[in-house]
């Protein structure tokens, strides 16, 4: 039933999109037929793979760098509540800096190659994961930690068993927001200065007044985000299978 409904809505959306092209004109809107045709072209000539790979690589490296730090740092800070309290206002201040406005500066510092985008993605992703994970680690139940210590568990076991499992739902909530932004950040970085990537492709299409290219680029980015999100959902359902909520709503 649900699947049938989804197909219906999807088809209706595609039809409306195509209608929009006919009504408003091809120079403003490119419908799904043209976009699919362009996708086939750039798949054959290798552009699709080249640009997608570049964007994915920037997003992935940046994500591992920023996300890794954002997830691990709260666990380290757990060992020193006083240091955490001391650093709190600085984290808040750093959060307040609009990361998008930093992109030109990062390009000035790190050049137009992959490195500037990696740093940009890392800066964007870090904060989503850091604050979520920090909240998760802080919601740990002291009585569970005490039980583990009575069994003879050391700090490492408390971290690995209690803090980690308590924080995991928060980490996933952070990933859910951060992963699409990692792709967006890479694309935005490419808008500003690059010689490859989906952002470059889109920006190049804009410069050439290539409406089909613009729509195709946006469509590819959207599909990429959807695919990553679907993979994340599966990972989450597996990792959090113990939770009554996740099971009952069939995530």
């Amino acid at each position: 039933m649900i699947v049938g409904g989804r197909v219906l809505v999807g088809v209706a959306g595609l039809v409306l999109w195509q209608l929009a092209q006919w009504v408003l004109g091809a120079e403003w809107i490119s419908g799904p037929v043209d976009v699919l045709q362009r996708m086939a072209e750039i798949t054959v000539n290798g552009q699709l793979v080249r640009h997608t790979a570049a964007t994915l690589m920037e997003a992935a490296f940046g994500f591992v760098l920023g996300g890794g730090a954002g997830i691990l740092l709260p666990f380290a800070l757990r060992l020193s509540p006083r240091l955490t309290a001391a650093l709190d206002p600085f984290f808040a201040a750093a959060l307040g800096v609009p990361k998008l406005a930093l992109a030109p500066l990062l390009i000035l510092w790190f050049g137009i190659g992959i490195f500037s985008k990696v740093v940009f993605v890392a800066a964007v992703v870090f904060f989503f994961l850091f604050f979520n994970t920090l909240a998760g680690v802080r919601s740990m139940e002291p009585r569970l930690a005490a039980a583990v210590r009575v069994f003879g568990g050391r700090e490492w076991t408390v971290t690995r068993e209690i803090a980690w499992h308590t924080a995991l739902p928060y980490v996933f909530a952070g990933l859910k927001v951060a992963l699409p932004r990692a792709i967006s950040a890479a694309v935005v970085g490419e808008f500003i200065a690059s010689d490859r990537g989906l952002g470059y492709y889109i920006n190049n299409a804009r410069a050439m007044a290539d409406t089909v290219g613009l729509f195709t680029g946006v469509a590819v980015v959207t599909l990429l985000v959807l695919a990553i999100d679907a993979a994340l959902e599966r990972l989450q359902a597996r990792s959090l299978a113990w939770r009554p909520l996740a099971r009952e709503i069939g995530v």
Partner: protein
Amino acid sequence: MSGAAPLLEVRGLGKRFEARAGRAEAFWAIRDLSFSVADREFLTIVGPSGSGKSTLLNLIAQIDSTTEGEVRFRDQLIASPTAGTLRPGWDRQFGYVTQDDTLLPWRTLLENVLFPLRVQNRLSTDMRERAAGLLHAVGLEGFERHYPHELSGGMRKRAALIRTLVYDPPVILMDEPFGALDAQTRTQLQEDLLRLWNLGRKTIVFVTHDIAEAIALGDRTLVFTRAPAHVHSEHAIPLARPRDVASIYTVDGFADLHAAIRKELA
């Protein structure tokens, strides 16, 4: 070390909680508390709610630090204001079954029961068999793969109990472990506990506010005062073992003991 020395000794123990936001004054939960526990004794402690019974167990288990006095175990000083860093469980010598079970919600029943052994690096085929035997003994067979939230309150209590029994600490501290259960489940669990205790007698310090429970289970019971808690009186419980918890009310001597303790708590 003489054979007559008590296994566990509490001397002049005191615990003060400092003032903090929402509680203007510092207060003593326990003060001048002294008693001892013999090896393989089942000691029960009754006292009014909020009389520092849980605090006492936290001090013995070394989850919380003492303000004055000391705790000795096998004639060794293990807790005092100057004893230094806390060592929860004192190197697996003390098991602790708390009021709310502390089962890990992300682990199945079997993983929970095996968890202490895993932490202690003692997970062997023998130990797995021991765990299976305990699961069988308390009727949890067939629920091994269930998560805690899928079990009833009574089943969770049983799981928490055998999770501590499985690693065999010489002393088990129990803090009103059957408090939140219906009467029938409670009696069943009390019987389970006595049966398991009979199989391999350990030293148990069992805290409760239920006089009948204190008499039904213990070799001896201590009556605590209101906070700051100290020992008001002590009663040997001369009822024969094995005991039938469900009909303990009808056993000779139960009624007198119950009335006496009740009067002291009033």
